[in-house]
């Protein structure tokens, strides 16, 4: 039992398929970690109920990285060198996910994130991260798409950006939006910032109100975006508001209130206006298990798990390298966040929808992208 770094029984003769779960279950961004996990657990329940993968059940090895990136690294080490997981899912945020990639590369165990959107997650200056995958859009993809939407659909010329400067998500989106918007003739007249967990935005809104602009772009998550929209509308700012998939949560409506949510557009993976039976079933199952509407993170967690399960089923052997190869060769995977194939950079190729809200309900959708 004390043989060094010999992973516990795994591979083809293992009874079960161990998947590592390395999520932010406590600490500053626990919301996203917990939401991902809910989706994952739903998926596992369904897979196991259907007999598992080739007869083997999935077991999760779940750890809480406390929203601490170093802890994420340590836990990745733990699950890969001691627990013998075949693949790992999480963390939720780009930073923490990136912190586990070197461990994955070293141990040749694939890691998958449902929600790490930063541009350089799977490829960076040093090249492709062979063992890292994700199933969400990158910031540049969404930022560009929303800039195009602002210019082409809304005919906006002047934009204000109010970004979450404490997350790379917010900063990444802001940067890409601005580049694309200004490249194509728009101007960003003001850039304001807040930090995650702020609740008071009146000061920047009052300032912004003094400027002339056509749209406000809010790269950030629904927790703050909901309040910003509410406070903006209360101050009488009624320019269109743009956002990205961080807006997708029933909480946005609760926070902002229906009246405030007019002329609000955000990019997303799917829309509830979709009548895709897969999506409808997911929403129904999720509601049955958790008694609430799913949000984007729930859906992405659900898809991430199924994505891994799909690859495990297709893998030649039950080891990290084979599963990695299977993940990399995924084609037309049908997820609730859209169907996608994995490109050579280990990013999903999927189309983006821009959802428009009217009185808080999804009203219009337009599709762009591949």
């Amino acid at each position, binding site marked *: 039992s004390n043989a060094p770094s010999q992973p516990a029984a795994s591979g083809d003769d293992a009874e079960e398929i161990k998947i590592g779960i390395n999520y932010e*279950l406590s600490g500053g961004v626990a919301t996203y970690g917990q939401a991902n996990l809910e989706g994952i657990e739903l998926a596992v329940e369904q897979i196991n109920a259907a007999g598992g993968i080739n007869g083997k059940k999935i077991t999760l090895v779940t750890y809480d990285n406390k929203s601490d990136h*170093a802890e994420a690294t340590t836990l990745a*080490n733990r699950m890969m060198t001691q627990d013998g997981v075949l693949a790992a899912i999480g963390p939720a945020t780009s930073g923490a996910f990136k912190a586990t990639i070197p461990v994955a590369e070293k141990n040749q165990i694939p890691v998958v994130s449902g929600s790490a959107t930063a541009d*350089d997650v799977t490829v960076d200056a*040093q090249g492709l991260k062979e063992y890292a995958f994700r199933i969400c859009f990158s910031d540049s993809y969404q930022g560009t798409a929303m800039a195009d939407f602002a210019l082409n659909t809304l005919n906006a010329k002047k934009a204000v950006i109010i970004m979450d400067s404490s997350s790379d998500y917010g900063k990444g989106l802001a940067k890409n939006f601005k580049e694309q918007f200004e490249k194509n003739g728009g101007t960003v007249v003001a850039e304001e910032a807040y930090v995650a967990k702020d609740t008071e935005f009146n000061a920047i809104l009052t300032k912004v109100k003094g400027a002339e602009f056509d749209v406000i772009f809010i790269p950030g998550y629904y927790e703050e975006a909901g309040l910003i929209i509410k406070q903006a509308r209360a101050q009488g700012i009624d320019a269109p508001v743009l956002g990205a998939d961080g807006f997708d949560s029933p909480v946005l409506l609760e926070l902002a209130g229906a009246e405030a949510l007019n002329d609000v557009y955000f990019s997303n993976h799917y829309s509830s206006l979709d009548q895709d039976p897969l999506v409808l079933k997911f929403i129904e199952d999720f509601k049955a298990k958790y008694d609430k509407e799913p949000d984007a993170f729930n859906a992405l967690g659900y898809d991430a798990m199924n994505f891994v399960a799909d690859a495990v089923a297709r893998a030649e052997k039950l080891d990290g390298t084979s599963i990695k190869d299977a993940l990399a060769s995924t084609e037309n995977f049908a997820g609730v966040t859209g169907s996608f194939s994995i490109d050579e950079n280990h990013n999903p190729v999927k189309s983006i929808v821009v959802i428009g809200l009217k009185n808080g309900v999804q009203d219009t959708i337009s599709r762009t992208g591949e």
Partner: protein
Amino acid sequence: MMNRLFEKGRMKYIFALLVFAIGQLLVVTGYLNDYLFSTLTTLCINIILAVSLNLITGFTGQFSLGHAGFMSIGGYVCALISMRIPTVPGFLLGVLTGALAAAFVGFIVGLPTLRLKGDYLAIATLGMAEIIRIIFLNLKITNGAAGLNGIPQFVDWMWLSLFTFSSIILISNFIRSAHGRACVSIREDEIAAESIGIHATKYKVTAFVIGAFFAGIAGGLYASYFYFLRPTLFGFSRSIDILVIVVLGGIGSLSGSVIAAILLALISTYLQAFPELRMVFYAVALVVIMIVRPQGLMGSKELSLDLLKGFGRKRQRGGS
């Protein structure tokens, strides 16, 4: 009598060598897998942080909530240098430059703020750390919120133990010197200390600068073990975590800091198996330990010193 009062303290070098050798053996034979090693790295970094904060808060009595700020300076400077010079000399240069930069900032910040006392100093240092963090969050060179990635990894057991032991030994040497005693006297009674000729401001700043220097080293080690750095790592709660170790171990006890760091690492590692309730149990453990031992695990006593004294006495008795 003289021998009892005046210890040369060679034991600690022998002890350090011994620990290093055992560790090296475990590494070579492969018993120390990546997981254990990364836990060990976190532990050693915490030890350096706690020991250096203990110098400031425990020994000199200056309540600081800004240790994470110094750590982040060491980390970023080291990362920026070692990313440009990805060799061992580059890494060492990075760690040392980072530590010096942290010490320098400690000096600049300490000079005006160390006039403040108690809780006022605490929020000034907290503010200082927040300012540093926000600067890193918005600087181009540090890549803002996304932080630095792909920092070359040089930390192995040799460097880790070298830096950890030298931090402990140097700080303990400092404390057992005239300069260190001056710091302690300030904690005990600043007015009395001044009345016996101790330049309180000078020594407070000295302790602050030395503490910041070692926190900078801890930051450098962090950067070059974990490959990445981000401003969120150095928030208020990290400073609090370090303070917890110091108080839990015993204000004014270096060995206490080491023991507390180890204990908390054990508790935290054990609790990894309970992801849902991990932090709840951790909090309970913290409260219970404090209630059971309000003075900290070691009080203000030192482990090694007492052992030595014990030996000394036995030998004397045997001799006479």
